[in-house]
């Protein structure tokens, strides 16, 4: 942004400076009394004039398992970028519960407030052992000095144990994460999400590169998590989506094209057109 734009931003009369607004405190907690835990309203993101998200409006309910599908380039990953603070929208609103304005929080604050994310390309820490990956993800203080003296408590160890069990990596706890198979890395990443103890899990393409068997286990894992957490799954594999989905949202060209159960969505002529038109 050039300084001219910056100055213009400062001179705007339709909003007040951030410093005058009451500080929002994460500790005030989430307010989900009205149902949704995530609100996206009229979110627009453009890259050099190209609109990756175009006035996207989407609500995710507390505890639901939502699948998001859509052709390549529909804006699914960009949507997750907006929620996690990696990308700032040009305009629109993004709220976590009723109280937390995601657009005023940075990436680390959002993560600590309880939104966890698995990236499309699985990224674990290859030179750390599996248990260390989980330890790093464990909810807790994130400051530099506290990390210097941090010790794994018995409680923490139990938590790691139970997550290892849950993601089916019990035997591989002491292996270097870089040595795991592709599918195992995906699970480890989901495990790291769980260690964060998030309210919302954003899971981008969890079964890419998995065998059928592995896919079934992943489906089982994700359905088990819903209820305890809100889970948003982006996936291309229709069979997989069908096996877990209750509510499906179809994104196309940065906006919601259709929403409903898998059957409703699949019989929607506009959806059929988008997928066949590819």
């Amino acid at each position, binding site marked *: 942004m050039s300084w001219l734009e910056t100055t213009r931003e400062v001179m705007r009369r339709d909003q007040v400076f951030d410093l005058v607004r009451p500080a929002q405190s994460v500790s005030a907690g989430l307010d989900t009394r009205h149902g949704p835990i995530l609100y996206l309203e009229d979110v627009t993101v453009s890259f050099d004039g190209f609109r990756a998200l175009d006035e996207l409006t989407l609500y995710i309910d507390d505890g639901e398992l939502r699948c998001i599908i859509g052709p390549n380039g529909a804006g699914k990953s960009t949507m997750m970028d907006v929620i996690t603070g990696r990308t700032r929208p040009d305009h629109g609103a993004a709220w976590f519960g009723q109280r937390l304005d995601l657009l005023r929080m940075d990436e680390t604050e959002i993560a600590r407030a309880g939104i966890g994310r698995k990236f499309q390309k699985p990224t674990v820490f290859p030179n750390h052992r599996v248990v*260390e990956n989980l330890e790093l993800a464990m909810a807790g203080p994130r400051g530099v000095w506290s*990390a*210097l003296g941090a010790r794994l408590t018995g409680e923490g160890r139990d938590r790691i144990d139970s997550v290892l069990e849950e993601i089916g990596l019990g035997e591989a706890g002491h292996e270097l994460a870089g040595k795991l198979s592709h599918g195992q890395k995906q699970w480890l990443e989901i495990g790291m999400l769980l260690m964060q103890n998030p309210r919302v899990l954003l899971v981008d393409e969890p079964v890419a590169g998995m065998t059928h068997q592995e896919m079934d286990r992943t489906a089982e894992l994700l359905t088990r998590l819903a209820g305890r957490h809100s889970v948003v799954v982006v996936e291309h594999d229709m069979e997989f989506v069908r096996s877990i989905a209750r509510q499906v949202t179809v994104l196309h060209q940065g906006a919601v094209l259709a929403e409903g159960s898998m059957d409703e969505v699949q019989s929607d002529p506009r959806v059929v057109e988008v997928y066949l038109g590819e």
Partner: protein
Amino acid sequence: MAANEITATRLIPQAPHRRLLHGDLGGRILLGILAAMIVVVPVLNLMVPADSPFHVSTYAVTLMGRYLCFALLALALDLVWGYCGILSLGHGAFFALGGYAMGMYLMRQIGDRGVYGDPVLPDFMVFLGWEKLPWFWYGFDHFWFAALMVLAVPGLLGFVFGWLAFRSRVTGVYLSIISQAMTYALMLAFFRNEMGFGGNNGLTDFKDILGFSISAPGTRVALFMASGLALGASYLICRTIVRSRLGRVVTAVRDAEPRTRSLGYRTDRYKLWVWTVSAMLSGLAGALYVPQVGIINPSEFSPLNSIEAVVWVAVGGRGTLYGAALGGALVNYAQTLLTAWLAELWLFVLGALFVAVTLFFPRGLVGLLRRRGDGS
């Protein structure tokens, strides 16, 4: 394999070992050698008569002391490069600043024994016709103050530089380049007489340190021992850091910074922390180096020095603390041997060494030794 079977029953026996050097064979060997040197070398120098074949000359003692300082610089560099993935091409600047802080103390110890006999002003200031001591020379007549500055000045520069760079997410080759620019800019600045650090002559003609003659064998031995102790202590500090959860976060930043951030870690603060610690350790190395060579001048800021330090770490073994220290000492030892008969060729040798290590032994000497060990 038996160990694996046991761990299968209880998955996380990784109760952090309280012993710092657990499983760190290389570190134990390094500290062992250091301890032995600190005891044996002084004896061989001070107590064994000069005509005995076991006598170690004062010249050799000082030479070894210098290698230890370079080892300490390599250790500090490895902390940021090997563990945090920040390739600094400007660590020589922190080393030189620590050296200048010590040099200023040594200058003020000269007192009225200088050529011009001014009780307060160092010779070069009298020569420039200055009337009084610049404010930033105040306090350097006290050793404790100078010792503080040895850590504080490089630490502060490191902090400010790191704060600006890491907050605006400057990484990779860009960071390397600006770190190089930093040391180059400092070199140009220190060349200027108006800066008040002796211009291109730098600071020299030191007389004594803490009241002891700087050229006396006893002082030389003491400086050597201090360098050894500093290296050992710094090794333990670095080891504490890399073994802590902080160290694991830092390595995570090296391997996948965006992922670390998405876990809620403010990665810029972690980088800033290790960077600043590393700058302070480099300053300490420079401060111990200067009284042993008897001079500090702006060429210590030369970009080449910083690049050489990177080669030491690469040769020794990036990402292992003892490997870096080993590289710092050995490469400089090799340089001393070689420059005796092919001084002009040294830089080519160094360059070739770097290329060879990068291509054939990416894990350095340590990697080579380990592979041997595994094979047998």
